[in-house]
């Protein structure tokens, strides 16, 4: 019964790391603006698709990936500047619908520019699997996990050791108080959108060699990322990363042992059950409502 468990664990962790990064992007934007950004999945798609496109233009792979991530960060910044900031003061649901509209635009644009085909990015360092503990590990899986850990460490440093990071944390605690001590909340929102674009694109680019990429991969990945940050407790970036890993592993075991067709459903069933028992996620603090 437990044959294949190490294999499922590895593929679950790989997929889960990507979900975690996507969830991280959701969390950053939520913390500074209170918006759930439904275009987050499209950032992931752009990361993969742009990397393939830049590679096709003759850039070497590392440069193509870097260029794709930076370009997506710019898309994130533009989105905040052109569509989110003018909306200041409108109800949050309007901003959420705007992000849905932008996700439609980005998806449609990608379809026009890159076509409807599924594209593959070459693996960063070969495809010869490494055999360990009864599992065949693709080198790309190690890349995914390593890049995720490195990004998490960098973010940890960003939040605890830089003035910008601390300012962003302050915004997530109390926007009004943050602006009273001289933090520009609007600039933090801009920064969080571009950082989310960057992180999402990194997730898309490192995952593309394993799962391939196409103009429409963003929707499901975005939903999984949203699930990851809810699972971890909305507002906690590292909870989102942990939530992603849990979700990926659950999904992988569910697909392996229960039924592969229900792979996507399995993760959501567990998420719902968890929410019913613990309505604020795994690591979320129970909120106290002010009257």
């Amino acid at each position, binding site marked *: 019964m437990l044959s294949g468990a190490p294999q499922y664990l590895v593929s679950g962790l790989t997929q889960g790391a990507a979900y975690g990064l996507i969830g991280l992007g959701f969390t950053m934007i939520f913390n500074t603006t209170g918006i759930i950004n439904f275009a987050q999945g499209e950032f992931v798609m752009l990361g993969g698709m742009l990397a393939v496109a830049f590679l096709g233009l003759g850039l070497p792979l590392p440069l193509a990936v870097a260029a794709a991530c930076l370009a997506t960060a710019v898309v994130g910044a533009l989105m905040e500047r052109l569509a989110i900031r003018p*909306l200041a003061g409108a109800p949050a649901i309007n901003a959420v619908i705007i992000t849905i509209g932008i996700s*439609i635009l980005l998806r449609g644009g990608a379809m026009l520019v890159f076509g409807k085909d599924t594209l593959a990015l070459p693996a960063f360092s070969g495809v010869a699997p490494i055999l360990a503990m009864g599992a065949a590990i693709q080198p790309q899986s190690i890349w995914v996990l390593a890049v995720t850990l490195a990004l998490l460490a960098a973010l940890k440093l960003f939040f605890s050791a830089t003035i910008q990071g601390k300012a962003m944390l302050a915004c997530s605690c109390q926007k009004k108080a943050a602006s009273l001590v001289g933090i520009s909340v609007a600039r933090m929102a801009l920064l969080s959108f571009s950082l989310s674009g960057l992180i999402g694109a990194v997730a898309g680019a490192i995952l593309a060699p394993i799962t391939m990429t196409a103009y429409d991969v963003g929707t499901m990945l975005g939903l999984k990322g949203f699930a990851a940050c809810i699972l971890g407790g909305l507002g906690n970036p590292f909870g989102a990363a942990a939530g992603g890993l849990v979700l990926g592993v659950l999904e992988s075991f569910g697909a392996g042992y229960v039924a592969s067709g229900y792979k996507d459903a399995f993760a959501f069933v567990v998420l719902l059950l968890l929410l019913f028992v613990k309505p604020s996620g795994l690591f979320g603090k129970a909120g106290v409502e002010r009257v």
Partner: protein
Amino acid sequence: MKRFLPGQHAARSALFLALLLAAPYALPNEYYLSICILACLNAVVAVGLNLLMGYAGQISLGHAAFYGIGAYATAICTTRLGLPIPVGMAAGVSLAAVVAWIVAAPTLKLKGHYLAMATLGFGIIVSIVFNEAVDLTGGPSGYVGIPRLALSGYAFDTDHAYYNLMAVVLALVVLGSLNLMKSRTGRALRALHVSEKAAASLGVDIAAHKRFVFVLSAALAGLAGVLYAHYLSFIAPASFGFAYSVQVVVMVVLGGMASVWGSVAGAFFLTALPEALREFEDIDILVYGAILVGAIMFVPDGLAGGLGRLARKLRRAGAAHGN
């Protein structure tokens, strides 16, 4: 505040029905009629969702599930089980309501984004079941051979007849919703939207009211699903996925939260828009997205609010002119 006359909702709904019934005579061909039927179906779902979202303030990103449950239930009852159509329809609506009743208790305890996630997850799970339970639903390729609607000997076999039925159903749903929101229950729902604690302290049973409006909203989606299945006589899971749930939410927001007429306008607008954009061929999806973003940015209170403002401005301009 202006006092509403008692019969005002009935009069407006009757006028609305008359307009709907007259519309086909102004349409150039049958194709437009089928779009109008779909618009009426979407409007029923959107009005139902608005009761939940606009009035009671509880978001649902999974309403496509109830739409689909209604459609599949009546499809299976009237074909495989060989039951008469009215029984299938009743089964579809009741199943949507029962599922909503079961889901409501644990789900509606959640708030804000957690509620959005839970309803979204529920919608995705149901849509995956439609895709994977091939023996029951026919899987991704769909369910064929659902009979066209016939009630007590009368067959709604032309699009025009079906459209007339949809117009009556939609007008009744609108009338019922308007009246519900003027009632004690409607006031309680709006109160719990503003503050659950304040509403509870005034004796509103929060959980029961939320559950009631959730079940009602799901039943309306189920009703639309049932009518959709007997209209197209073919259904496939792609119609009942996350995209449809989002589309209905957009109809409600674009139409104007807490406005029944707004939801109807939003549904008609968003159903007709892709058809109107057909001539843009490849870039229609881009134009659709741009219109959506633009509409929310420039008319933040929705079509209902925007039209209301326009009307007031015109009236003021007219009055100034008169002076």
